[in-house]
């Protein structure tokens, strides 16, 4: 069916349940359903943990405490939130136009690689810090952008499915990073580069501990400022600019967009470039703000988690950032209880429940009335 699906009704298999379209889901319905679904997801994951012999209440309590319960936890959560938000915003931007860019991971890696290249080879130790950071950010964005432009161009020019090309490019990017950290840039074959010079580091809160002692030990870095900047940038781009309007048109009906004079190919390529650039910036933040070197496992899958985050945030910049914050806490919490498995489990269950729960927002469930069956 093309077009008017939203107001149709949908049969639900052979269950005696029916889905009926709601006329227009309001904001409150959205919020209420989302909350309900989150609770459902936690319950469901809890069941799995219980079956596996754990105590979900304890797990959740210590995870929540670790992620949000203290100054330290909050610090770590915010640090994780930075790359997650940037990458998720990039994904959300592309998804708005129905460009299914699932290559944020590769774009992030290429951004990290490019920024590292600058830090290692183009920044003399006496370069002013701001200049070094600007150069690295530009390189990071450019690296990610290239990794977005390639699939964007392939799609625009030859109709190559971007889901497949972006996914492939993730593996290519990982191989390239591995090549560099084990090869020419590597240090003693450990899969990492030497530590960067201090002037390539994004300043951290702890560096101001002399003036404000409360900041001592806090690793949150300047990159956090990229979060509000990116949100505002994207919100303005999408809602207030001509280009953003073109994205909305293409996302809704490419034929109408073409009819209206939108240059489809150009739009696709630019959107993929911006999307990749945001993920690339996430990579730059990690090397410059957190680890200060490039290593093989620079990303614990931020680029993939970003897809989930973008989806849950319904491609809305502010909502995406909120979800990214929660997921940052989730990752920190999972680290705390020493179980990456729990983090993946929760992410998976939450995504599953939310996506299937999406139906609840658009449809109302009714029991099938027997008299109409005959």
């Amino acid at each position, binding site marked *: *069916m093309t077009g*008017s699906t939203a107001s149709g*009704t949908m*049969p639900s298999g052979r269950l005696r349940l029916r889905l009926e379209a709601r006329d227009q889901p309001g904001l409150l319905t959205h919020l209420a359903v989302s909350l309900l679904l989150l609770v459902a997801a936690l319950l469901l994951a809890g069941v799995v943990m219980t079956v596996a012999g754990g105590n979900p209440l304890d797990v959740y309590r210590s995870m929540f405490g670790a992620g949000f319960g203290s100054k330290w936890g909050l610090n770590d959560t915010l640090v994780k939130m930075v790359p997650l938000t940037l990458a998720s915003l990039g994904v959300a931007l592309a998804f708005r136009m129905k460009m299914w860019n699932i290559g944020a991971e590769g774009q992030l890696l290429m951004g990290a690689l490019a920024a590292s290249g600058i830090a290692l080879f183009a920044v003399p130790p006496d370069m002013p810090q701001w200049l070094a950071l600007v150069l690295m950010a530009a390189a990071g964005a450019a690296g990610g952008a290239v990794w977005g432009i390639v699939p964007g161009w392939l799609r625009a020019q030859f109709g190559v499915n971007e889901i497949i090309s972006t996914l492939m490019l993730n593996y290519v990017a990982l191989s390239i990073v591995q090549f560099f950290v084990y090869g020419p840039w590597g240090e003693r074959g450990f899969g990492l580069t030497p530590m960067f010079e201090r002037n390539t580091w994004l300043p951290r809160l702890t560096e101001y501990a002399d003036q404000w002692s409360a900041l001592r030990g806090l690793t949150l870095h300047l990159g956090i400022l990229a979060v509000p900047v990116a949100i505002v940038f994207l919100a303005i781009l999408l809602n207030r600019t*001509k*280009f953003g*309007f073109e994205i909305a048109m293409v996302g809704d009906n490419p034929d*109408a967009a073409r009819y209206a*004079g939108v240059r489809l190919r150009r739009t696709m390529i630019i959107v993929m470039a911006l999307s990749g650039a945001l993920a690339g910036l996430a990579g730059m933040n990690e090397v410059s703000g957190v680890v200060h070197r490039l290593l093989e496992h620079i990303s614990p899958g931020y680029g993939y988690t970003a897809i989930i985050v973008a989806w849950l945030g319904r491609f809305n910049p502010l909502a995406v950032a909120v979800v990214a914050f929660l997921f940052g806490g989730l990752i920190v919490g999972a680290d705390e209880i020493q179980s990456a498995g729990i983090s993946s489990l929760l992410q998976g269950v939450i995504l599953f429940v939310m996506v299937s729960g999406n139906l609840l927002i658009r449809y109302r469930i009714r029991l099938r*009335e027997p008299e109409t069956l005959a």
Partner: protein
Amino acid sequence: MVEMRGISKRFPGVLANDRVDLDVAAGSIHALLGENGAGKSTLMHILSGLYRPDSGTMKVEDRTVSFASPLDAIRAGVGMVHQHFMLVETQTVAENVVLGDRRLGFRMDPSAIRDTVAGLGRESGLDIDPDALIWQLSVGERQRVEIVKMLHRGARLLILDEPTAVLTPQEADTLFDRMRGMARAGRTLLFISHKLNEVMELAETVTVMRQGRVVDTVPKAQVSHRELVRMMVGSPVLFDVTVPPVQQGRKLLSLRSLRVENDRGHTAVDNLSLDLHQREILGVAGVAGNGQRELAEAITGLRKLQAGTIELDGFDVTGSNQRRMIDLGISWVPQDRQHTGTAPNLSIQENFDLKHYRSARRGPFLDRAGQSRRAAALLAKYRVAAAGRHQPVRLLSGGNLQKVILARELSTELRVLVAESPTRGLDVGAIQNVHELLMEQRSRGVAILLLSEDLQEVLSLSDRVAVIHSGRIMGILPRARAEADTIGMLMAGVVPEDMAT
């Protein structure tokens, strides 16, 4: 066959159906008439299970029913062919016909399906090639697919929402024959139309709706054309387009030896030359599928030329893209208002602004205040019935959607207007408005290319009539010499003797 009692349906901002009663006799042909937005489609959606009424009861074949989905409706024997088709573009005719048919389960035998579909087509006189892909079909052909799909699922009551809006007069005649045939075979037909001639010709009973209510249901034999109009509009209306004499201006658009291919790579427009002047309406008459769509797309920059040149006001604009053509002042009301003309989930305001946003002088930014001012003005001027300018256009009634497109295309600084069936789906009052608008543009100096299958419309509006057949211009007749039979012959590809040179 059908008994609807006290049916009401409210949408945010409108009461689309207000305590409607409707009775349809088994085996009859019943027409539903009314202005744009009167609630006809809504009522039929309720009867076919797509919407649930807020209140009221329905009986089909004397059994009380309550449909929660179109599937329930079709099980009870009620099938609907929508105003906007619902086919999967990338699948074949046969696949579309059996799509969603529960009886088949998961096993599908392609050749058996193809035979069944072809057989059904022959039986009902609606021939279709079961292997054709939907996107390759003309609208008329798609409609046949929809009808066959419903027959295949066992519809005893067939609802057709403005079936002839998309058809040529010839296709419409064929459809009427088929409909009469189906009625004789015992099926019940319920159709919506804005064309009174059709209603008078085909229907046995007529129900007129206005602003969500049923005005009256009358046997056709007891009512006149004029009375029907009065019931629809609430007051008697005059139907006359006056074509005021104007001094034709200079040559504005000049097409030279155009050759254009269709989606399938066949030549659709063949060595076609036309001149279009300021203050002129040049009507292009022709049976659908003879290259009209490709011609329109070529002029507006959407389709590549294989050969030929296009001049606009003396300048060569051959090969310009859509964006450039828009900027040069070429407006276009496309045939396909759903898939080409509008972005369904965007608001009315945004659809008004689909092209215009670029001309805002705000650098990269949108002029949002200007947008809302424009939207409010256009809504009022074109009398679009909607819950407000922020309503997504997919919720608009067919006629109101067309008004949105017209408003957008006529509200710019246009020099040339390519209008494909501009009054399709509009009610009598709105058609009158559009005709007046076209005349207004004409006197302002716009050159109008009117592509329409409605011969009556072409004849009454055009200064000159060009007849297209197989992508070629068979002849061009000035208004005074444009007679229906000559044009009919030309449309069929026959050049009358007195014209042959």
